[in-house]
């Protein structure tokens, strides 16, 4: 009898937990839809507030994309670009996010230099796709080499196949490396950010850095980071003037 009671209580608690998770999911979806309605009616500030509220519990490519659209419409190009970049980190193949990002960059005069062949190759897939491909290639390479020899597979075919998988692993590894170079970049979100010669507010300014510019942060000192932007300019930038794409 006691055992049955315990089982009953256990099942009840599980059901409660499931209901709670389901309710939370429904609640998020409701908030997401409300934010979308606010956007449609042109109330971008409310849309941003609701989307940002949802971000506190996690994020999805769709959420970052919608948030980016809201920021773009409200004139905050830096935060818009930041969130498009975040959406693309989660879903590199999202053509909407890519298209909107390009449009916004063009509109704000943030032209990027033409990519060379290597950069185009690295940009074919996202970091995680390249990582997965490298892992699969690596496993297949060893599988082909270690599986027992069968009469249907000759030695030459085995080595050819292994070579192909090794090549795939190396190419994907290069893709991972290339993507990793840009993984920890940040986006300038302040409209009047200035690069300075040393990490102090009173230091001389090298020049302004446009909102929405991608920067690669290096060493830090106090509230400043030594950054290099896409055009190769480097200087000290206040940490509040930019936000990292990857919030790790």
């Amino acid at each position, binding site marked *: 009898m006691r055992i049955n009671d315990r089982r009953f209580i256990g099942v009840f608690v599980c059901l409660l937990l499931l209901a709670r998770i389901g309710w939370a999911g429904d609640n*998020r*979806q409701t908030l*997401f839809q409300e934010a*979308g309605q606010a*956007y*449609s009616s042109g109330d971008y500030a409310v849309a941003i507030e609701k989307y940002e509220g*949802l971000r506190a*519990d*996690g*994020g*999805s*490519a*769709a*959420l970052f*994309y*919608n948030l980016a*659209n809201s920021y*773009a*419409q409200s004139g905050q190009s830096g935060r818009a670009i930041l969130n498009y970049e*975040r959406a693309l*980190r*989660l879903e590199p193949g999202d053509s*909407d996010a890519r*298209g*909107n990002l390009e*449009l*916004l960059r*063009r*509109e704000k*005069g943030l*032209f990027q230099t033409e990519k060379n062949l290597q950069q185009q190759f690295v940009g074919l897939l996202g*970091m*995680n796709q390249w*990582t*997965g491909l490298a*892992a699969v290639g690596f*496993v297949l390479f*060893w599988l082909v080499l*270690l599986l027992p020899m069968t009469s249907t597979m000759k030695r030459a075919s085995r080595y050819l196949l292994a070579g192909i998988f090794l090549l795939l692993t190396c190419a994907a590894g290069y893709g*991972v490396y290339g993507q*990793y170079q840009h*993984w920890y970049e940040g986006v300038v979100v302040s409209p009047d950010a200035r690069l300075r*010669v*040393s*990490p*102090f507010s*009173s*230091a*001389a300014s090298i020049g302004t850095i*446009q909102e929405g510019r991608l920067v690669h942060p290096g060493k830090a*000192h106090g509230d400043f980071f030594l950054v290099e932007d896409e*055009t190769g300019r480097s200087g000290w930038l206040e940490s509040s003037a930019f936000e990292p*794409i*990857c*919030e*790790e």
Partner: protein
Amino acid sequence: MEYLKTYTRKSGVGRRRGIAAVCVLFLACILWVPPLFAAVEISASLNANSFPLDRVATLTVTVSGSSSTDIQIPEVDGIQFHARGKSSQFEMINGSFSSSVVLTYLVQAYRVGKFTIPAITLNTRDGLSSTQPIRFEVTSSGTRTAISTPSQTGTASTRLRSGEADKVAFMRVTPEKKTSYSGEILPVQIKVYFRDGIKANLNSLPQLSGEGFVLQQLEREPVQTREMINNTRYSVLTWNSALSGIKEGKHTVSLELEATLLVRQQRHNARSMFNDPFFGSFFDSSYSEKQVTVASPKMELTVLGLPEKDRPADFAGAIGEFSLKTTAVPLEVEPGDPVTLTTTISGHGNFDRVQAPKLVSEDGWKTYTPSSEFLKDGSPGRGKKVFEQALVARKKDVTEVPAVSFSYFDPRAKRYETITSAPIPFTVKGIQNTTGESQSRQKEQSVQQESRSVPAPAVTEPPLKTLAPLHLGSGDMDGQITPLFNRLWFRLLGGVLLLGLTTVIVLRAKAARFAANPVLQRDQAMKHLLALREKEIAGAQIAADSRRFLALCRTAIQEQLGLLWETEAGAITLADLQRRLPENSGLITIFTAAEQSAYSGQELSAKEMQKFTTILKKELEGLV
């Protein structure tokens, strides 16, 4: 005696070799051991404890006893450090060996005030080693610099002025002209002469002394030549630089340079070897260091103010002689695409004041902040500045990239000049670039047609209206912007895969080793067969079937010896055993008993079977 001579010769050779070995070891110890165990020290010094805003000071960081120079120069508000080089020095004085690395930085200040360079630390094997903080003051421009002399003892400071009869070193500064305008680049040649045979080390670059002018940053490496003056040969260091007047009026300026001269000193020794000048100079001379300041004669230069009359509105301070060239690419674009307008201003003058030329008309264009790049052209003040500016046509009927204009002051003609480029013909795709009234009418028509056929062209509507719409589904809200290889599950999976892979590789290696080793294979087969037979023998023993027991014992002996001797097991006879095994081998006893049982039907008791089993097991296991 012969033996003794040989011994002596041999021992002499041996001794010489021994001495040589000891010398090599000694040298190795001298060269390598002291640096390994020498105490690591770091020190820093600034060549000036006070310097004006328009000058720089030199910070020297010396790391002794270590080749590591992994130091971090601390950040100081209002100060910037420019690394200027690194040099290594190895010294052996009186058998004491030392090595040091000297790092040099230029210290540039951005404001007046008192500053402190905090302690510079170096990680050593004994812990952290750090310098003392350095305090210094930056004064307003034009204040006299207090140069600190690094060595106070054993050296004398001599001031050499041009005009002295026996000049060891002197400086000549030749400006292109004596009168210039405020902000104008005044090319100047600086030559420092050292009499041939004098060894000199430069402690600083030539620095300007006097008010009203600033000296452009000099090249670190001057041009080195030799010149004959009044039948005396000089080594000459030449810098081509420029002065720039910053204050109107007449100014007296000169240039100075700090150097260390190595001066040979003669010892007047009564016991000089052979009284020969060669030996005298070879043995009886030594060098002493002499810190000197080489200064140029003072010169009077005049700085004029720029005239107010006819000053163009877009004049930004450029003084010199310039030309303007513009290009634009692409000349045919899709609506909304940018055009890059490249403007090149070349010539000579103060390029730091040359700003991006203005568009004569921005009507119909959206413009972006231009980027600029200065390309030097050898001599100071000569080169070209290239501006790149992105432009986007706002209107569809734009047919040309607008002209740009640039104003400057020509000091030779003593007047302001404005140069204007020609507009560049340009086409937005789908629009015909035509001229004339009838053509313009056609153009208007074509624009209207275009407007009808394209419902929302990018150039006529705000681009943000064309943003792709929102995504309706929220998607998986647990998405993390984390690299796959930083995720726990991926690492665990990778770990398991690697473990499995390692296991498979080890097993495969073991199998390959087994396949390549016949002894291992034989031992394995013997163990396997023995285990099988032992089981059968035990069965026969339990069943008290002594005939079968003995037959199985004989088979086991034949199988094991067959594998060991690499012969057919069935062909092994008692005679083979007696011939190849020791006389007292238990196997011969068992084999004999088995033979007798087969031919005479001899039976064994349980005790005997147990005894045979023990012997058989022991003997056969001993074979493997």
